[in-house]
């Protein structure tokens, strides 16, 4: 296999990652796991064996759902893009190996347009917190909303041991999903990619300063309970902001452990292929800005003092990175918006311009007032839509992830049937990482 024939782009960037994109045009189950001319074939039995042995799942169902198929996937816990690093590089550090200097550097293989959807029924409460529904329709009106209605999905449907409590179940599923993602991408290791994209942040002082605006991405992840958390290299996020290279997100530095409201969750997939990171890199390539880095912080912080501390530390970090402006995303809702607004306030105070991305919870009729917190400085807010809007989903032919839908909005009917559901139940439908085209408007 001669990789030298693949298209290449060169640039002067530090912490440079070469992302080898293998665009998945079809995904099939078959005798052997392999990659050939845009088709990923998966030996389900071998994958099942691997995950049962390694992750502690009791049983596992494996299925494929493609865009346009009359299929509904329920009980989704997370979505992950299959990725692997050659030459002992670390992918999903903290879970599949120890963090080292390879994370965000060198070469990463990615099965573009493909997602592992790890599913499982996790009933019950932990300190009154529950796992909420997250579903995806592959066709019909529901398919307009989720980014995972457009990916070729390998569905891993976990059956857990009876004595595994909710926290154990989600951690087993999380590990299984990450293992599967690396295992699948390994099929590309001896193949040439369709495309090589080179990402990196500009070298300090390498270019005349301030020719173009310098932009930082502030990325808060949810941390509230053992069912609602985010991991940075395997450890739960803290409210002390951490600066990371955007390319490190591409290697799975951030992993979702949040199973709250489906529409506003930040799935692992959207950290790996973060729409904001992709946009900032694409604008950087066009010479419109310099992407200075990502500040990872936590949202849903306890207490006002804690919130202020984190907001000002994040703002000051952005200032030290010499940011002219920041994009601030968020995860989930409620007082997470207080964290986002305080961070906005702190940045603007320090002369760093802000744009925020927020979903809305305006009620089924759109008449409910806006978020609980709104800073005066928040004059540039993107709305990714009202998650309370109700959509009618038709009956489907195939159901994956469970015959029943679980979660906070328990649906007391077969998931195969036609149903009305708030967008809140549709996975990443109002993603506050800006993955969708939905937008809220005043009428």
């Amino acid at each position, binding site marked *: 296999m001669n990789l030298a024939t693949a298209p290449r782009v060169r640039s002067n960037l530090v912490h440079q990652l070469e992302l080898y994109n293998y665009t998945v045009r079809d995904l099939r189950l078959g005798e052997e796991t392999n990659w050939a001319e845009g088709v990923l074939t998966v030996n389900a039995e071998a994958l099942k064996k691997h995950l049962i042995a390694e992750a502690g799942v009791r049983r596992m169902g494996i299925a494929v759902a493609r865009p346009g198929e009359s299929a509904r996937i329920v009980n989704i816990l997370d979505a992950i893009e299959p990725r692997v690093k050659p030459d002992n590089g670390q992918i999903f550090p903290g879970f599949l190996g120890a963090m080292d200097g390879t994370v965000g550097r060198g070469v990463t293989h990615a099965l573009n347009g493909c997602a592992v959807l790890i599913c499982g029924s996790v009933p019950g409460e932990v*300190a*009154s*917190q*529950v796992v909420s529904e997250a579903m995806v329709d592959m066709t019909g009106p529901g398919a*307009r909303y989720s980014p995972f209605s457009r990916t070729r999905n390998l569905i891993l449907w976990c059956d857990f041991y009876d004595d595994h409590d909710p926290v154990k179940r989600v951690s087993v599923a999380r590990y299984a999903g990450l293992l599967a993602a690396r295992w699948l991408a390994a099929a590309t290791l001896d193949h040439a990619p369709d495309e090589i994209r080179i990402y990196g942040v500009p070298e300090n002082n390498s270019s005349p300063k301030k020719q173009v*605006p310098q*932009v930082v991405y502030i990325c808060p992840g949810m941390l*509230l*309970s053992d069912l609602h958390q985010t991991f940075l290299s395997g450890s739960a996020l803290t409210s002390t902001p951490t600066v990371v290279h955007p390319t490190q997100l591409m290697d799975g530095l951030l992993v979702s452990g949040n199973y709250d409201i489906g529409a506003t969750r930040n799935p692992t997939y959207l950290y790996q292929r*973060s*729409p*904001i990171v*992709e*946009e900032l890199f694409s*604008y950087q390539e066009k010479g*419109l*800005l310099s992407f200075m880095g990502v500040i990872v912080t936590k949202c849903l912080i306890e207490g006002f003092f804690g919130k202020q501390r984190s907001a000002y530390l994040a703002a000051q970090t952005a200032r030290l990175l010499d940011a*002219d*402006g*920041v*994009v601030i995303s968020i995860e989930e*809702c*409620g007082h997470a918006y207080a964290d986002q607004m305080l961070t906005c306030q702190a940045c603007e105070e320090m002369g760093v*311009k*802000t*744009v925020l*991305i927020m979903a*809305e919870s*305006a*009620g089924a*009729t*759109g*008449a*409910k*007032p*806006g*978020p609980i917190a*709104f800073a*005066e400085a*928040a004059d*540039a*807010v*993107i*709305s990714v*839509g*009202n998650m309370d*809007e109700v959509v009618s989903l038709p009956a489907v032919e195939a159901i994956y992830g469970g015959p029943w839908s679980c979660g*906070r909005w328990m649906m007391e009917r077969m998931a195969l049937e036609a149903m009305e559901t708030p967008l809140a139940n549709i996975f990443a439908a109002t993603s*506050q*990482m*800006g*993955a*969708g*085209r*939905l*937008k*809220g*408007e*005043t*009428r």
Partner: protein
Amino acid sequence: MTRVMHYINQFFGGIGGEDKAEYPLTVTAGTLGPGRLLAGKLGDAGTIVATIVCGDNTAQYSPEHIKQEIVALLEQYEADILVAGPAFSSGRYGLACAEAAEAAQIYGIQSVVGMHPENPGIDLCPADVMIVKAGESAVDMAASMEHLCRVLVRQAAGEPLGSEELAYCIKRDIRCNTASRKKGATRAVDMLLTKIGGGKFESEQLPPHFSRIEPAPPIEVPLSKIALVSTGGLVPKGNPDRLEASSATKWVSYSIAGRASLTPEDFECIHGGIDVTHINAYPNRLIPLDICSEFRAKGLIGALDDEYYVTVGNLTPVARAEQFAIELTARFREKEVHGVLLTSS
């Protein structure tokens, strides 16, 4: 063809003026009064199957009953959509039209209402009902009906309103979802670059408008009866009234007579938006009965109400929370409670 039900008052129904405001709710097959004008404009787009006429006072005396009657008629005539008015600036007629629109919502069909922008009925119309701007009086009937008809035709066809039809409607400050050409992330980076460059940009979300409440005058706490109220979801173990963990539909109250503290053996927190571990370990952290009992014993608090009152604030709509407050205030007046200690999660 779309089956339209038309709701009008006694004046437009040709029954009479103010002296006939007690006229009972009646139904006539086909069009009546201004409905004829509407039918002409509708043409093949729809047919008015029946017209409901009701006295404006009658509609106000027993709104729940009137709504039920309208629902029954919508069912009887298999209506697809309801039109109410135009009520112009007549306040009671506007309120009645809002009731009719609510009945349509209960029955599960859309409605279009015509009102002057200052008609008080607007505030009572269900949030997603389109209210077409009408003039002050029936002098404006022809134009008002024309606009109402255009909106009606779009709604009946299940099509989104165009900018022309939207301009006919009263802006209701309702948020709705639309599809943008660009992804949220792209819009964010575009907006940021414009903002840094000092250009003009338009925020997609504006600060919410919450009504300001003037605080009640101070009270002498040692002479007052105090009630403990919380939005934090503390209930007796097992949650006997099934108070919801989020989007609460009710408030509940539980006796604290003879208690000086809320014990973890008897109470638990069911709030769905917080980690409840610390509250469950010591429920007084949420509802401070321990300290209040101590203060009561020392005479720092005059008296404590014998119940505590609780709901869950998590994702509960403001309108519903306001309703809880009205109900609770009535209860407090009845029980001669002077002050409330309100704790959140």
